[in-house]
């Protein structure tokens, strides 16, 4: 049995290949598959997962369509129609196919639910706003909170500036794939690609890539690796991502319940870095 790390590396390679395979990559993959039965197994599994999930979706959509027809027949009096082959069909009474197409894929999302949603959307929105308002009110008035809840309240995924992609990085294919993976939400893959690019770039850009890897790990819920990568950036005070790295490192510590490690970072953010000062102060008040 292969270990988790090997699994991840294989999965990552498959993702890279399938996300944008040119002829050179394809040839490389073909050769590699011939010599690597484990990779072959992983590739087959990846493709199967995609295919079977798509089939399930189609089956549920078809099942929803059949049920809609059965329901319609029950409502309009199936008994009267029995045996009368060729009777004209009242299409007007059926849900519009596009409507079904959009929603019927889910077992949970039943037709009557959809109708209910349609009728009571305004009420639902109103209730949501009131509920969120109450939640926000109680949260903002709490004197103390758990570190995990503070993390959830203050964490916002880092948005990589698209301008970065044309700032001397774009020539690197691997980096393009890393940005692309991040934008697709494939965060673990993105982190690994940023790390690889980090190894191959000139020193003046290395801490930026380490920072990107750190926030990608954090999004992928790999907190240990996130803390390690972000910690390296925080050690480089001259890095342009020093403030952001310190903020996300503090949040990473909160997420893993390490309040004592988060506190000094938040104190520094409060006094040294205006853009994070007020948020850091709020968190310190609530810890």
């Amino acid at each position, binding site marked *: 049995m292969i270990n988790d790390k090997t*699994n991840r590396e294989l*999965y990552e390679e498959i993702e890279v290949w399938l996300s944008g395979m040119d002829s050179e990559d394809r040839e490389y993959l073909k050769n590699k598959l011939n010599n690597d039965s484990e990779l072959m*197994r992983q590739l*087959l*599994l*990846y493709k*199967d*997962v*995609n*295919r*079977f*999930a*798509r*089939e*399930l*979706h*189609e*089956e*549920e*959509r*078809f*099942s929803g*369509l*059949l*049920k809609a*027809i*059965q329901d*319609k*027949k029950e409502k309009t009096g*199936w008994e009267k*129609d*029995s*045996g*009368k*082959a*060729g*009777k004209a*069909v009242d*299409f007007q009474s*059926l849900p519009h*196919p596009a409507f079904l197409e*959009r*929603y019927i*894929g*889910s077992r*949970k*999302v039943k037709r009557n639910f959809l109708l209910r949603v349609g009728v009571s959307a305004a009420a639902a929105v109103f209730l949501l706003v009131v509920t969120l308002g109450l939640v926000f009110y109680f949260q903002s008035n709490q004197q103390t909170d758990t570190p995990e809840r503070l993390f959830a309240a203050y964490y916002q*995924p880092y948005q990589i500036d698209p301008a970065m992609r044309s700032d001397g990085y774009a020539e690197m294919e691997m980096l393009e794939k890393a940005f692309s993976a991040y934008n*697709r*939400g*494939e*965060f*673990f893959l993105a982190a690994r690609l940023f790390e690889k690019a980090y190894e191959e770039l000139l020193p003046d850009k290395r801490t930026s890539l380490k920072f990107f890897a750190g926030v990608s790990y954090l*999004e*992928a*819920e790999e907190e240990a690796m996130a803390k390690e990568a972000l910690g390296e950036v925080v050690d480089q005070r001259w890095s342009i991502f020093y403030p952001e790295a310190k903020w996300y490192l503090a949040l990473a510590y909160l997420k893993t319940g390490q309040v004592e490690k988060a506190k000094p970072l938040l104190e520094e953010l409060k006094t040294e870095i205006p853009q994070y000062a007020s948020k850091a102060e709020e968190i310190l008040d609530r810890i």
Partner: protein
Amino acid sequence: MENQRNRVLVAICQGREEILEKLYQEEFPVIENFVIKNNGNKEDARDLFHDAMMVIFQKSRNKDFDISCNFSTYLYAVCKNLWLKELRRKKNFSDVEIGTEIQSMEGQEEVDDMMPIRKKLFLRNFSRLSAKCQEVLKLTMGGMDVEEIKSIMEFSSLQHTMNRKYRCKKALMELIQKDPGFWDAYS
């Protein structure tokens, strides 16, 4: 005859609503009559018809799938096969009187046994995912974009939606690889 048969299969495969309704109108009374004569009721007939159509839908996706009789005969045979399975499953099976027509179906290939081993492995582990993860994966592979999935699943942001999609697929891959049946299915 062959053209008509193929047309019905294609219509089923495409989920053509008007053909399905016509089919239901013409075929259901026959199936209902069969079920009621064999220890079932109207509700059983509804479920049976639905399940049989699902079996045919799944089979019709295979481009090599073909039937040698007319569609009505084939549907009737699938229904009889499934109904026999259902009767066997019932606890009071010994009290159920099985007609000679049904008995003649015994020995035929079971529908479930035709499911590929890899799909069984997938379904077993897919069912172990959270309900939200299952929905996210189905919607993703059903061709919906992230914006639509966010809206349907009521997720807070696109970023969160993409993150869920990634984590769910990763979780499923890991579950399948830890399943004792993995090595048999993929060796």
